[in-house]
C-alpha cells in the first residue's frame, strides 16, 4: 500500500534514515510473462529500529532485501541506506552492512569453521591476526566452541546458521539484513539465533536490523515495527500493537467465574458489553475440584470493564481469573489479505527464494509445522 510507510520530510541536517525506500518497483523479465516482485513500495526505517517484513513466500520480501543490499537494481524508484544510494554508492553500503539468509550454504565444506570465518574476515579487510582473534571471539559468542575446528561440511543446520550469523557480524555492521534467519531451525536453535540478534543489536545504539520472516510470532517478538507485505505491496505498517488494534474493534476478555446465575444472557444485558459467550467446554475445574465458568466477553472498550466487574457481584459471581485476549498478527494478515497465512504459504513457489522449496527439509507442510511450533515456543 503505497503511502503506508511514506518517508516523513526531514530537516536537512537530520541523521539519514537507516532505510529510505521510495516508490520501489521491481519486475523480473521471465517467461511466459514478467513477474512483478515489488509494486511501488515506500518505507522509512529509523536508525536503531528492529524492522520486520512479514509476508508469505513470493510477497517480495527477499527482492526488497536484495535491492537494499546492492545485489539487485530496482526497476523504478530509489532506495538509500543511511543516506547512501543503493545504485551508485554500493561500496559505502557494503562497508556498513551485512546479511544472513536462512538455509544459507555459503563457504567451503573443506574448511573448518574457524578457517571459513577467517576467510570471510579477509573480505572485510581485517588484518590477519586480528581476523583470527575476531573469529574466535565470535565463535565463542555464538556458542560454536566445540565445532571450532570441525569441517563446515559436517555441521548441523543449526550450527551452520550460527556460523553464518558469526560471519554476518565479522565487520561490525551498522545495518544487518536477516532474510528468514531461522528458516529450517529447530526450536532451540531458532531461539538461540534470536537471542544473538538481540544481544548484538543492544551492544551499540543505532544498529538497525531488517528482518524478513513468515513466522508471525518471531516478528511479534523481535520487531519494533512491522510491514505486512503481499504481492509486492505493503499492506500495513506499524508496531505489532498498532497492527493488532487494526483488527480489534472491541476489547475482548476471558473471565473465569465461580458461578454465573442467569447465564451469559445476563452479561449481555450489562452496559458496555457487545457480546458474551461461554468459552469452549463451558465449564472448567479448578485445582480443588470446584466447577467454574469461563466466559469470553467483548466490550466496547477497556473502560467498560469496570462496570462489568461491578455488576458481576450483583449476579452472584466472583472472578477467579481475568485475561485480556489480543488478536495475533495472523488475524491482522487474514483481515488484510483475505485468507489465512498458512494458506498463502502453501500457494505456489516463491519467485525470490525457490531454493527453499527445493530443500528436502523445507517442504510446505514442514515449514508450516515449524511455524506453528515456533509460535508456540515464542509465546510460551
Amino acid at each position, binding site marked *: 500500500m503505497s503511502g503506508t510507510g511514506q518517508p516523513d520530510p526531514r530537516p536537512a541536517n537530520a541523521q539519514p534514515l537507516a532505510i529510505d525506500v521510495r516508490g520501489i518497483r521491481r519486475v523480473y523479465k521471465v517467461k511466459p510473462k514478467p513477474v512483478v516482485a515489488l509494486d511501488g513500495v515506500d518505507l522509512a526505517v529509523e536508525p536503531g529500529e528492529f524492522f520486520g517484513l512479514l509476508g508469505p513466500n513470493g510477497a517480495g520480501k527477499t527482492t526488497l532485501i536484495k535491492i537494499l543490499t546492492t545485489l539487485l537494481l530496482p526497476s523504478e524508484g530509489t532506495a538509500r541506506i543511511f543516506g547512501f544510494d543503493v545504485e551508485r554508492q554500493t561500496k559505502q553500503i557494503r562497508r556498513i552492512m551485512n546479511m544472513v539468509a536462512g538455509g544459507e550454504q555459503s563457504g567451503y565444506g573443506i574448511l573448518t569453521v574457524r*578457517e571459513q570465518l577467517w576467510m570471510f574476515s579477509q573480505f572485510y579487510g581485517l588484518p590477519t591476526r586480528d581476523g583470527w582473534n575476531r573469529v574466535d571471539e565470535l565463535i565463542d559468542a555464538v556458542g560454536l566452541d566445540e565445532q571450532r575446528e570441525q569441517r563446515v561440511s559436517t555441521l548441523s543446520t543449526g550450527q551452520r546458521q550460527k556460523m553464518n550469523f558469526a560471519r554476518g557480524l565479522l565487520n561490525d555492521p551498522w545495518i544487518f539484513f536477516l532474510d528468514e534467519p531461522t528458516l529450517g531451525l529447530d526450536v532451540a536453535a531458532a531461539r538461540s539465533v534470536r537471542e544473538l540478534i538481540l544481544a548484538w543489536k543492544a551492544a551499540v545504539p543505532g544498529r538497525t536490523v531488517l528482518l524478513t520472516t513468515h513466522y508471525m510470532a518471531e516478528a511479534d517478538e523481535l520487531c519494533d515495527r512491522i510491514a505486512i507485505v503481499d504481492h509486492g505491496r505493503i499492506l500495513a505498517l506499524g508496531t505489532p500493537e498498532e497492527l493488532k488494534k487494526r483488527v480489534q474493534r472491541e476489547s475482548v476478555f476471558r473471565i473465569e467465574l465461580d458461578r454465573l446465575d442467569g447465564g451469559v444472557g445476563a452479561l449481555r444485558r450489562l452496559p458496555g458489553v457487545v457480546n458474551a459467550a461461554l468459552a469452549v467446554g463451558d465449564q472448567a475445574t479448578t485445582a480443588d475440584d470446584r466447577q467454574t465458568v469461563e466466559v469470553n466477553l467483548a466490550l466496547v472498550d477497556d473502560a467498560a470493564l469496570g462496570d462489568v466487574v461491578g455488576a458481576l457481584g450483583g449476579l452472584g459471581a466472583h472472578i477467579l481469573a481475568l485475561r485480556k485476549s489480543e488478536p495475533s498478527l495472523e488475524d491482522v494478515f487474514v483481515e488484510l489479505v483475505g485468507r489465512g497465512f498458512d494458506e498463502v504459504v502453501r500457494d505456489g513457489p516463491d519467485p525470490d527464494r525457490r531454493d527453499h522449496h527445493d530443500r528436502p527439509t523445507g517442504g510446505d507442510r514442514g515449514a508450516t509445522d515449524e511455524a506453528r511450533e515456533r509460535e508456540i515456543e515464542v509465546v510460551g
Partner: protein
Amino acid sequence: MTARGDAGRRTVDAPGRNAFVYRPTASPQEAANWTPRQVAMTNFRTVLGRAYPRVSGLFREKSWVFFEILLPFLATSAFVFVYRALEAPPQYIGFVVLGGAMTAFWLNVIWMMAQQLWWEKSQGNLELYFAAPMHIMAVLFGMAFGGFVMSSTRAAAVLVVATAVYGVSFSVDQWALLIGVFLLTLAALYGLGMMLASLFLMWGREAWHLTQLLVEPVYFVSGLNFPIARLGVLGSVAISILPLAVGLDAMRQLAFAGSAYPAGTPAPAIEAGILVAMVVVFIVLSRWTLAILERRARSEGRLSVRWQ
C-alpha cells in the same frame, strides 16, 4: 572477553571490545569512509583469503595425487613410448614431459577457474562476494593465486617423476628468460581463466558442456605432446591466441637449447612479448566482462535469483 590467536591458539585480552563490538565508529558515515590504503589492503587480504581454501585443499583432499599426477603421467608415458618406438630425437621425450607438466595448469584453468563463479553462484557464495566491500577482481585473483599454488605442486610432481623415470636431460642457456616465460604463461593462463569465469557465468549451465568441448581441441592445438610447429598455420593461429601454446613452445625452445627444434615458430623472446600482450588483454577483458556480469546480475537478478 577473551580471544584465541592463530599462533598456538593463545588467549589474549581485548579490553574495550567484545564479540559484538569490534571497530567502534561514531556513525555509519564514518564507518563507510575508507582510506585508499584500507581499500588496497582489503583487496590484498581478499586475494590471500580466497586463495586459502585452495591451498589448504591441497593437503586435505589427497585424491588429486591419483587424478592429477598419476593419470596425466600415464598419458605422458604413452607418448614417450610412441616416440621411443619411432626412434624420435631424445628431446621429444623432454617435449612431451614438459607438456605433461603444463597440463596441470590447463586443467586447473579450464576445470576450476572457468567454472568457479558459476559454482560459487550455485553455492550461494557469489552474492556474499558481491555484497562485501572488496573488489570482486580480488576474489578472482585469489582463486587464480590459489590455483597457481595448487597446480604448481602438481606440475612439479609430474615433471620430477617423469624426468627421473625417462631420463630427460634439460639444456638451459637463458634461465631468466625461461623462468620469465613460465611465469608469463601462468599469468596469461589464469588471466584467461578469470575472463572465462565471468563468461561462463553469463552463459549459465552451458558452460560445463563448453568446457568439455574445449578440453581436447585445446590439448591438440596447444601441442601438449608434440612441437606445435608441426601444425603449420594452425599452430601459428594457436600461438597467437592460446597462452598454453605459445608458452609451451617458448619453454621447449629454452629448456632444450642447442638441440634441433622444428622451425616455424617465433623465437622465445618474441613469444615472451606475445605472452605479455596476452596477460594485458586477458586481465583487461576479465575486468571488463566482470563489470558486465555485475551490471547484468544487478539489473536482471542473475546473482540473487538462482533459478534464472
